[in-house]
């Protein structure tokens, strides 16, 4: 094969991949561009024409007048708490399931696996009724509790990783007199940082983006999270205030993107490993 045709093929490949990459980021760019336009410009110019002069008025409006600042704060606190809970409690349970021998272990493990396959929608009605009985509708506790203690997915993910850590390390520590807690904190967790980070990221993204549970369990601005806030904006104002809706969407999208770009090397590698370990 001549070097010329190799060069042509390589250029074609790059071209296609670059087009795909552009397609991947285009919606973000369009959102940001639209959010920076003045209302009149947004309606009169094509979507891809850059906003000029760019204005931050839409952002200040959604932030101040439409309550986005408090929605974002609610979302952030919920996502942080759920993520911490998921990582801590999944790691504890995973250690027991991966490394300890006790009656009922295999039954429990299969129980975790089985519940992993249950679709979310199925549990919503009873979950809502339970929360109503407990008086937790429209509270932070109602938003957070269902996933605070970890999910079967989280337990499973960490367990699979724990099982790859050599037993000799644990045995040596036992001989030195270390107890279960010391082994977990001093040996297992430090060796599991990548998988715990993966779990944290996946949990954070899922909680941040979750719509349906907050939609059902909250009904006031006191607890409203950003997904619900935005879909309400969309429902009420999309025809008359598209610039506000777009600024809200940008505000919801950008923080996660920032987190992603900050940790991208780690995230991309760990996601690729997640399912196949």
């Amino acid at each position, binding site marked *: 094969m001549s070097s010329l045709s190799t060069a042509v093929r390589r250029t074609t*490949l*790059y071209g*296609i*991949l*670059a087009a795909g*990459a552009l*397609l*991947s980021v285009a*919606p973000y760019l*369009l959102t940001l561009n639209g959010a920076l336009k003045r209302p009149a410009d947004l309606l009169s110019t*094509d*979507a*891809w024409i850059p906003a000029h002069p760019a204005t931050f008025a839409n952002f200040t409006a959604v932030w101040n007048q439409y309550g986005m600042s408090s929605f974002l704060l609610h979302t952030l606190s919920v996502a942080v708490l759920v993520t911490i809970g998921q990582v801590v409690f999944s790691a*504890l*349970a995973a*250690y*027991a399931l991966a490394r300890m*021998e*006790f009656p009922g272990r295999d039954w429990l493990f299969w129980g*975790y*696996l089985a*519940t*992993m*396959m*249950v679709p979310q*929608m*199925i*549990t*919503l*009605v*009873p979950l809502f*009724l339970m929360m109503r009985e407990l008086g937790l509708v429209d509270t932070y506790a109602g938003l957070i509790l*269902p*996933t605070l*203690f970890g999910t*079967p997915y989280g*337990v499973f993910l960490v367990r*699979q990783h*724990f099982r790859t850590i*050599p037993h000799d390390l644990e045995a040596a520590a*036992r001989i030195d007199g270390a107890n*279960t807690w010391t082994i977990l904190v001093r040996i297992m967790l430090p060796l599991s940082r990548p998988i715990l980070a993966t779990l944290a990221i996946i949990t954070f993204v899922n909680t941040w*983006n979750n*719509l*349906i549970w907050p*939609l059902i369990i909250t009904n006031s601005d006191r607890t409203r999270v950003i997904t619900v806030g*935005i*879909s309400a904006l969309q429902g009420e104002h999309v025809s008359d205030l598209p610039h506000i809706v777009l600024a*809200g969407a940008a505000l*919801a999208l950008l923080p*996660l*993107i920032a987190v*992603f*770009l900050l940790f991208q090397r780690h*995230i*991309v590698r760990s*996601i*690729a490993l997640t*399912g*196949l370990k």
Partner: protein
Amino acid sequence: MIDNISPTKTFPGGDGSRRHPAESPPSSTAGHRRGRGRIRATLEAYLLLAPSLAGLLMFLVAPIVGVVVISFFDWNLMGTPRFVGLANYREMMGDSEVWRAMRNTVYYVLLNIPAQTVLALLLALAMNRKLRGLKVLRVLFVLPWMAMPVALGIVWSWAFDPQRGVVNQFLALFGVDGPAWLSSTGWAMPVLASVNIWQYTGYTMLFLLAGLQAIPESLYEAADLDGAGTVQRFFRITLPLLRPSMFFVLVTNTIGSFQMFDTVYVMTQGGPGGSTDTMNYHIYQQAFQLFRTGYASALAMLLFAVILLVTAVQLLYFRKRTIYDFS
């Protein structure tokens, strides 16, 4: 059951034998757990498991039992539930809206999964080369995965707007007069599917790429010596060895697709003319807008049964053709 599939076992000379050393713990630790030690270890284990187990029982197991029970009742969330036996299930059988929602869901899955899987595979093959700049591209391709479906739904609705939307403006450059995408019964569902394909192709690509990179180079070298062409290499080596990864992405993506909700909720609300009314959206409406709790629970059981069936079929199909490492 899904995640623990390791590709290593299929490789000749792979290190499968020492990959899962935890199968039976070595005797050094077993000896310590006799008599009182054993009771203590059991107590410790349950102590570690307690929070997670409590959460699982309360927020997953109890609701699953609950939905089965509620599906035999007629209840509008107020007043006293009335036991109606199988009436909800009988009504469901004759409810044309339910079957339309089921058809819509299956249609969505069929639009979404094959296209997304093939695209992701092509992308992964292209990415699996040692070329400059691919790492940056990889990051860009994964970016859609993080997108909040609600926010993106708004942006997509704007992009597919017949007059102001970027899609039709783009088509107009080529003299094509684009349709009113989201108010067309024929186009609305393909648009929703494309949104999902856009969002998850890069993410799926990552898993397939990981699978590709686990295939030993020596196999390809041996194939080269035997004079195998590109096509043969793909069908004889790459595809068979990629099966575990394929299995994983197909099963998890299919389960996910059956539960699509956010995009429908924001972009079409089931319309136009019920053409995007999926099972999940239909259940939501019955339960939380019409307050037909019992009926919605029966529908949830139907959706669950269908998902289980489809997953089981995929499992059987792949099981015949792949050696797994279930641990």
